[in-house]
């Protein structure tokens, strides 16, 4: 029987970060709770925040359930997480600068060349180009799970355009409106400075050719995109223009924005469209979303694109295994946050272990996604395990295996009252001239009892995430 770390209760005693929440919880009878829950939903609807997180698809107008019970970290828990997250963000960026430069880590034999240079996310078009301040990934979203008081594992890195940060901000906003007393009783570190830090991060990577205050824009694929709300929300909070490809054009080695007062030069573009679509003259010629000629301006130093084209090569499933190696290689440090141990069935020793422990492991297809072609050992019947065993033996190179992670739980409001539910965490690390991390992130919660799947498409919700002051 697996034991799960409960972030609030250790036996009958309450862990310190949640000390003040027990009274609050008890002071809420079911009726009041239902009223508050309805109020929260009304607020979310009024704001219009209904988009799907992480490109999971599904109904874009569906509200993601918000759970009012906050998830809480102490400042010392957070400071270790913070060091680990920043360390990882630095290493990932060092890796990107390296593989588009001299490729030292590959020459040193620490990462196979094939994983990098034959990766679909490797962009030959930017080889040899060093973006301003040597930053490729300006917003690194790192998905973490907790398995014990001091044990955090990184599930995956998101180096391109991690979404969901608007939930972090909105969840806080709504909690403060509904429970002002809670925020007087607990000393909670703010997250509201995130948009300003984001703007400063972008301004700090403006190209050398920019003189004066940099003009920053957000480039969106348009209002049909599931994250359009987040694009306009962030543009609003940063005080920058939200543009589509057709609002921009290139001329004379620069990018310009059409405005009612005539063209205005753009220095930094926070793009929320994929590499393949940003410039039909460099990538997909049929793209209608991008700006023709943008990549030529970028590569000649006339504009900065965030995240830098090509950043995706650092957040690939196969490259993930090597992030601890990157930390040692570039920073000369030991990783503060651990990866989930991963067995490559293509290696004979690993395969032997996997076949012997199949009933305990999660086995995934290397290129699979969305839970297809996957075995969750502990939740499968003997027949299912045996059928999967045959598939692995037939094509071992196509499978990786990981231990079934014991995701921590936090108290969550459910129909029957309050019950523990499994959670994960996505903090958003900003990388520009400086590295910044606001104390918080997006906590996703699996609302179904016993479920370890936090995806909103499979019954997941979100929570406010608190980091207490010292």
């Amino acid at each position, binding site marked *: 029987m697996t034991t799960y770390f409960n972030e609030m209760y250790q036996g009958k005693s309450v862990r310190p970060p949640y000390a003040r929440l027990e009274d609050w919880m008890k002071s809420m009878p079911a009726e009041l709770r239902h009223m508050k829950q309805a109020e929260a939903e009304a607020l979310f609807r009024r704001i219009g925040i209904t988009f799907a997180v992480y490109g999971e698809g599904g109904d874009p107008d569906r509200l993601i359930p918000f759970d009012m019970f906050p998830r809480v970290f102490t400042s010392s828990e957070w400071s270790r997480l913070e060091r680990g997250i920043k360390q990882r963000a630095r290493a990932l960026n060092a890796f990107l600068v390296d593989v588009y430069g001299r490729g030292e880590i590959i020459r040193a034999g620490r990462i196979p060349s094939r994983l990098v240079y034959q990766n679909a996310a490797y962009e030959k078009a930017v080889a040899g180009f060093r973006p301003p301040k040597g930053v490729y990934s300006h917003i690194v979203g790192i998905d973490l799970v907790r398995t014990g008081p001091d044990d955090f594992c990184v599930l995956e890195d998101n180096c391109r355009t991690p979404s969901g940060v608007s939930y972090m901000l909105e969840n806080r906003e709504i909690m403060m409106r509904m429970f002002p007393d809670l925020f007087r009783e607990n000393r909670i570190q703010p997250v509201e400075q995130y948009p300003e830090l984001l703007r400063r991060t972008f301004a700090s990577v403006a190209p050398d050719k920019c003189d004066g205050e940099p003009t920053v824009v957000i480039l969106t694929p348009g209002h049909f995109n599931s994250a359009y709300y987040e694009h306009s929300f962030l543009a609003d909070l940063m005080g920058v223009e939200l543009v589509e490809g057709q609002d921009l054009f290139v001329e004379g080695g620069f990018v310009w924005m059409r405005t009612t007062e005539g063209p205005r030069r753009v220095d930094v573009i926070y793009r929320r469209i994929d590499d393949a679509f940003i410039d039909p003259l460099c990538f997909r010629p049929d793209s209608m979303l991008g700006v023709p000629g943008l990549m*030529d301006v970028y590569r000649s130093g006339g504009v900065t694109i965030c995240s830098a084209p090509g950043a995706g090569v650092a957040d690939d499933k196969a490259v993930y295994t090597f992030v601890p190696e990157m930390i040692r290689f570039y920073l000369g440090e030991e990783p503060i946050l651990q990866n989930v141990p991963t067995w490559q069935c293509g290696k004979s020793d690993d395969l032997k272990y996997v076949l012997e422990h199949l009933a305990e492991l999660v086995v995934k297809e290397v290129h699979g996604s969305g839970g297809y072609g996957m075995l969750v050992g502990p939740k499968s019947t003997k027949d299912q395990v045996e059928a999967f065993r045959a598939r692995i033996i037939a094509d071992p190179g196509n499978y990786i295996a990981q231990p079934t992670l014991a995701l921590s739980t936090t108290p969550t409001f459910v129909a029957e009252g309050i019950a523990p539910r499994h959670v994960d965490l996505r903090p958003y690390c900003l990388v520009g001239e400086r590295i910044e991390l606001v104390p918080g992130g997006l906590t996703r919660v699996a609302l179904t009892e016993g479920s370890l799947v936090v995806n909103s498409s499979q019954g997941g919700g979100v929570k406010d995430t608190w980091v207490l002051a010292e």
Partner: protein
Amino acid sequence: MLLTVDHVTRYRYDQPVRGVVQSHRLTPSVFDGQRVVSWSIVVSDASRGAQFRDGAGDALQSWTVKGPVSSVEVRVQGTVETHDLAGVLRGHRETVPPDAYLRDTPATAADLALRDLSAAAKGAEGPLAAAHALAAAVADAIAYRPGVTEARTTAAEALALGEGVCQDHAHALIAVARAAGLPARYVSGYLFADKTGTPHEAAHAWAEIHVSGLGWVGFDPANRCCPDARYIRLGSGFDAQDAAPIRGVARGPGHEALNVSVTVTETAAQAQSQQ
């Protein structure tokens, strides 16, 4: 040789367009096999944009034409001194690692027939011999015949047809080389058609295969040879689209008509009697 190029590309729009943006790879590569004596690119009514050299060593130049405009003319004129290096791209500076060219694109993906053809490399002694064997196999399998294929024809389709032009030969050679584990890429340039041989197409394309120890080596299956002093190299890419000398977008509903003329002539060296 001293080769002089005159290359004119005309775009006509049946309705005036609001503007045109182009990205050019129209400047001869810098390597030991060629030296630019003179070179000019003129684009009608256009302003120059970004200019830089990319990681593959190609010189890129953007242009913007403000609308309304109903035709755009790109004229390239220049003279290049060339040397026969037996196809070896010696002295070329680039940062893209050869392994990056092991990746398939839709145009160069190997189907079963291309994989079978790549068996020509088996038993060859070393990668250079393998590359020669592959180039010969492609030349044997695809006969030169203009008009049967089009710009979007893939390597697999061209092999199935058994006919094609230099673009199809290059795509097929890239596909079989990659299938045999050799990095390969598409090269665009010019070719001087002399009196003795029968080379095809003055605006030309061929493939380069990376041979460890030698570096990139050009192979032109269309003419069953390696590029020599008759060739001028412009730029490279994964396939024809990626290596295109001109990529452009016109804003507006108008339909585009394209007209290209290329001549490559030999300029006699003006020998002076020395007494």
